[in-house]
């Protein structure tokens, strides 16, 4: 039966059909929906949100060692976090099949960098498969598990945002019949990576790669589509689809397994064509590997950018530059003529409250990964660095150590990010006594990725009630002497807390206690309105950056716009009323009539 599935939904379906026993992940765009779909549709699979990608990866290794097929999913930067277990798991190899998803984000639709994780597979010397649509996403999960077990290796399935989030038709099947599970074998020479054992396993990696190099020459995943043209194209992943769209009847070698590459097949293809152009997104990964294999009659990145996502337009432009495409439809409307519509903190977002305070106090703020990164945008402009998960605390410590008491430094990170990799940062701040203030913006959900549970929400991915870690008690146990909780939408209370804590020697923690305004349930309250006669146009309310506050057509005597509140958007968080000196912002009298 055919279903319309996203790449992520197709991977979940593939896990089910492949007989996966265990799936683990930390949420991260564009990979999040894979495990959400496993949890929703395939309850026979044990699945969990782990605190971070490293733990998820280690849980997956455990599943494999225990003999069950195991799937671990993450966004591209998640692989950085999981790199430690990955690099050594390549040595031990698997018991039950092990596949992990690296969902890369070319164009950085929702990421801090656009690293090309195909290099990770080469680095770890493990095979990677690269689907180009939803059907392949499902099929390749099944094949990846076969390869994992046949060659005793973890396998990476490399998705990209466009593959993960595009939908296409997928032919589904029943789950395959797996033989009996091989329980854990205490083969210490295979699984205990002390130097003596690891040296032997390094040999295993080299032997395995040599065998895989033979295998990929005959795999149906690498295939040539011939039309008898003098021009040949080599491509894989989404780039293949763009190339096919533009030149459907040009010879093309489609790469399905990107490490190791089928060098014999590539050499034959190159020898058989007058010109060969490589179309690949981001880095010249294929191009480099093919040149290293001694095949030089190829062209590639000189026509295509290493930055951002490819698209039908960018591929067509590249092929035009190469002289093989004549005309390309150009965009006629200049989008820079139009106002931007960037994502903003939601109306009523509790983060807006403490950012308004940090802005007022002009503090230096090291930031982190989550919705609150949006606090950097104007008019708030109250967050000044963002590197990776948990970095805010270490960054603040380092900055404080070199600057001494010249400025007060605040680290801001969310609850899920704190549990992911902020705990060790707090530990360092205590151990090495750093004079910083850490704000843990606890909205009790992993919000940026669409609302996932985590170890402090009290629920698991599978919907079971569970223990919930107490963040305040945890910070105290780590040795923080001053831990206090504030309502971030109480401007004065938050102001007092921040002022006191930045002056306190040693690290202190402020936890904000308002849940996300959208998830798990939207928060609505009586909306506010502006009494125009009272508004003096001071713009204090504009400066909190709330999407519900708009300039009124009515002007003050000094010709400044007064404020107006959209009654449909406003959900009554009251922050604007608190910063309004003339008290011109009041609760609407007839909330029912408006909502």
């Amino acid at each position: 039966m055919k279903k319309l599935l996203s790449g992520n939904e197709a991977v979940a379906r593939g896990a089910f059909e492949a007989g996966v026993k265990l799936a683990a992940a930390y949420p991260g765009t564009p990979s999040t929906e894979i495990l959400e779909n496993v949890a929703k549709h395939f309850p026979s699979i044990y699945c969990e949100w782990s605190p971070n990608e490293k733990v998820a990866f280690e849980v997956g290794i455990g599943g494999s060692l225990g003999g069950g097929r195991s799937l671990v999913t993450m966004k591209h930067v998640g692989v950085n976090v999981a790199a430690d277990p990955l690099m050594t798991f390549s040595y031990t190899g698997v018991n039950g099949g092990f596949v992990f998803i690296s969902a890369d984000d070319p164009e950085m639709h929702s990421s801090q960098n656009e690293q090309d994780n195909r290099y990770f597979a080469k680095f770890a010397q493990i095979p990677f498969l690269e689907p180009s649509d939803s059907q392949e996403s499902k099929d390749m999960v099944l094949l990846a598990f076969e390869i994992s077990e046949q060659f005793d290796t973890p396998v990476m399935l490399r998705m990209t945002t466009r593959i993960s989030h595009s939908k296409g038709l997928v032919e589904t099947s029943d789950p395959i019949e797996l033989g009996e599970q091989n329980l854990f074998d205490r083969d210490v020479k295979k699984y205990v990576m002390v130097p003596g054992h690891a040296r032997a396993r390094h040999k295993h990696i080299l032997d395995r790669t040599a065998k895989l190099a033979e295998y990929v020459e005959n795999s149906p995943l690498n295939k040539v589509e011939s039309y008898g043209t003098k021009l040949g194209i080599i491509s894989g992943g989404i780039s293949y689809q763009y190339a096919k769209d533009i030149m459907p009847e040009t010879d093309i070698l489609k790469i399905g397994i990107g490490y190791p590459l089928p060098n014999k097949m590539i050499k034959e293809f190159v020898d058989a064509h007058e010109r060969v152009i490589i179309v690949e997104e981001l880095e010249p990964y294929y191009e480099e590997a093919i040149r290293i294999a001694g095949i030089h009659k190829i062209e590639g990145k000189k026509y295509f950018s290493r930055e951002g996502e490819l698209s039908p337009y960018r591929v067509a432009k590249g092929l035009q530059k190469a002289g093989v495409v004549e005309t390309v439809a150009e965009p006629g409307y200049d989008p820079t003529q139009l106002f931007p519509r960037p994502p903003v903190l939601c109306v009523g977002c509790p983060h807006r409250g403490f950012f308004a305070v940090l802005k007022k106090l002009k503090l230096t703020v090291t930031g982190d990964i989550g919705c609150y990164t949006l606090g950097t945008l104007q008019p708030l402009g109250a967050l000044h660095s963002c590197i990776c998960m948990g970095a805010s605390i270490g960054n603040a410590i380092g900055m404080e150590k070199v600057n001494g008491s010249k400025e007060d430094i605040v680290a801001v990170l969310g609850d899920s990010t704190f549990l992911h990799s902020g705990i060790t940062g707090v530990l360092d701040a205590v151990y090495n006594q750093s004079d910083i203030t850490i704000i843990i913006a606890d909205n009790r959900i992993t919000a940026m990725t669409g609302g996932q549970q985590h170890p402090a929400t009290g629920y698991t991915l599978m919907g079971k009630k569970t223990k919930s870690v107490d963040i305040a008690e945890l910070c105290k146990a780590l040795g923080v002497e001053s831990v206090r909780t504030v309502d971030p939408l109480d401007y004065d209370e938050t102001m007092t807390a921040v002022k006191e804590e930045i002056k306190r020697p040693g690290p202190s923690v402020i936890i904000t206690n308002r849940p996300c305004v959208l998830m798990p349930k939207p928060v609505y309250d009586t909306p506010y309105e502006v009494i125009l006669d009272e508004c003096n146009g001071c713009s204090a309310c504009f400066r909190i950056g709330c999407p519900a506050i708009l300039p009124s057509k009515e002007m003050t005597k000094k010709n400044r716009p007064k404020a107006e509140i959209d009654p449909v958007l406003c959900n009554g968080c009251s922050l604007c009323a608190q910063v309004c000196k003339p008290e011109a912002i009041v609760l609407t009298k007839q909330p029912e009539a408006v909502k």
Partner: protein
Amino acid sequence: MDNNTQNILIVGVGGQGVLLASELLSEVAMMRGLDVKKSEVHGMSQRGGVVSSHVRIGAKVYSPIIPYGQAEIVMSFEQAEGLRAMDWLAKDGRMIVSTTRLVPTTANFGGLGYPDDPIAEMKKKTKNVIAIEADKIANELGNPRLINTILLAVASPFLGFEKSVWEEAIKKLVKPKFVDINLKAFAQGSKLAEASL
């Protein structure tokens, strides 16, 4: 390029139901036995950003993204977003736009403001603009979140699928509680479509 591929671009702002609309359209095409690909990027969409969904329908579809100038229909749930999507509209394509205006805070702070009359701007660039007061109709029906279904209905005569298939898709994909009101919205939109033909 495969000229038999039908390209439809649906755009709007986070929360307007762009994804449901493209889901309904894809479902309808699938019920008719055609190949479908649709593409959008989520992640930031909940936070008031631009949402666009590309839908491509045909015997065999490769790229999930529509090349510039090849969308025969652009549906925009917001005036200015329609303007932003003009690059994709084919020369003889149809722009079906809701007169809804959603002005972001950022457009209030100097620089580039919200255009005075985006629909007039569109009309300078293409002749087939169908502007629909979809928010007004939605409010009359008692639910502001029906702009998507109304615009789909207006577009439906140009897409070539029978009304019954659309209704079937609505029943399948819309939450049971909202099926009736969406069917009503579709009927209202269909009337407008007949009037505009």
